[in-house]
């Protein structure tokens, strides 16, 4: 089985079938690539600032010395300018590889939980999209109102499909929702100020397909499915018994973090949300005797 990591650096999408051991190894390399990109990005940023200052100084020298020969002018200006262009290109290249840590951290933590109920050599499908949430391909709505430029993005960045030890199959799709509002506003003093606001959320659609016998038991109950309890910032948006699966759709309001429980200020835990979703659905499904 070839590693989905092989194509990752071109596409920033980690996609394919893998095992728990394969994922752990790839997650370690993903983290390492990301940390390297973060370090290089900082380095190139400061290098570019330094070269920019040198270029500004060179421009000053050239302006102050009008009698400088043309060849010398080219060297004094051309050298730092070329370095700056190279630096900007390098910065843009590594910036692209500097991805959101929280995404692969969340997947890693979730798989750590699910691994307890999966066979050690179980394979599963994963599609982990690490392109930025504001990537052009994820833009959904652009509009303008009262001077605000409004952009809405929907980013289905995670798909996970696998089988658990009780022979049930699960399929999880996670989407980021982001709304950005930007405007230029003239202050009382006549200065132009740029304002930006954002609303964020995370939605998850979890489908669990147990074996036919347990599904039959669930159907035979014939009553409305009791709504699972989700963390405070989350909301059940839909719960239904499809022909072959239990489907739970939930929404988590706010800026999310991967860590469970005690996350930073103004952040909500996506791991708690996804954990509660899985637990909630499994409370509905009759357990199989083994």
């Amino acid at each position, binding site marked *: 089985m070839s590693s989905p990591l092989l194509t990752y650096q071109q596409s920033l999408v980690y996609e394919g079938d893998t095992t728990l051991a394969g994922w752990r190894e790839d997650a370690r390399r993903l983290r390492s690539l990301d940390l390297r990109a973060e370090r290089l990005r900082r380095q190139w940023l400061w290098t570019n600032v330094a070269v920019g200052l040198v270029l500004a100084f060179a421009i000053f020298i050239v302006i102050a010395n009008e009698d400088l020969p043309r060849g010398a002018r080219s060297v004094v200006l051309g050298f730092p300018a070329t370095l700056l262009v190279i630096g900007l290109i390098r910065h843009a290249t590594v910036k692209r590889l500097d991805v959101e840590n929280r995404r692969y951290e969340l997947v890693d933590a979730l798989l*750590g*939980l*699910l691994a*307890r*109920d999966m066979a*050690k050599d179980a394979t599963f499908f994963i599609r982990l999209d690490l392109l930025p949430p504001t990537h052009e391909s994820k833009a*959904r*709505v652009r*509009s303008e*109102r*009262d001077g*605000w430029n*409004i952009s*809405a993005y*929907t980013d289905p960045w995670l798909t996970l499909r696998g089988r*658990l*030890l*009780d022979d049930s199959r699960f399929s999880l799709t996670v989407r980021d*929702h982001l*709304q950005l*509002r930007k405007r230029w*506003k003239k202050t009382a003093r006549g200065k132009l*100020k740029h*304002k*930006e*606001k954002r*609303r*964020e*959320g995370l*939605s998850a659609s979890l489908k669990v397909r147990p074996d036919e016998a347990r599904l039959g038991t669930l159907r035979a109950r014939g009553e409305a499915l009791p*709504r*699972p*309890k*989700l*963390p*405070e*910032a*989350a*909301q*059940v*948006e839909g719960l239904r018994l499809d022909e072959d699966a239990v489907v739970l759709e939930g*929404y988590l*309001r706010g800026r999310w973090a991967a860590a*469970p*429980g005690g996350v930073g200020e103004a952040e909500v835990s996506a791991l*708690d949300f996804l*954990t*509660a979703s*899985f*637990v*909630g659905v*499994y*409370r509905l499904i009759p*357990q*199989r005797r*083994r």
Partner: protein
Amino acid sequence: MVLDPTAGGCGERAGFLFPHPCEGEGVARCDDCGKAVCVDHRHGADGRDLCTTCARKLPDAATRFGGHPLFLAAPWYVSGPSTGDPHDFTESDGASTLTEGDEAFENDLGAS
């Protein structure tokens, strides 16, 4: 960690979502029920080794083991009923930016 060479295979069945046989090697015995437990299913409580099943029965299990993966499915895990506006950000969120009554968000420049 004190290994118990007589423990044998892990006898605990607790999982994250549902119980199932454990493939781990026993490293100790539960001080309450005597069951052999592996590293994952062994929980220390006041100097005693407990299996997951016995640890879940402790009156203060929620505070002791609340963040542990094997305890997340316990009834006391869920924080409470869901609250909030289900339509805060849904498929129609593009339209919701045009909803009347959202003027405070539109005009409040202080919180960017």
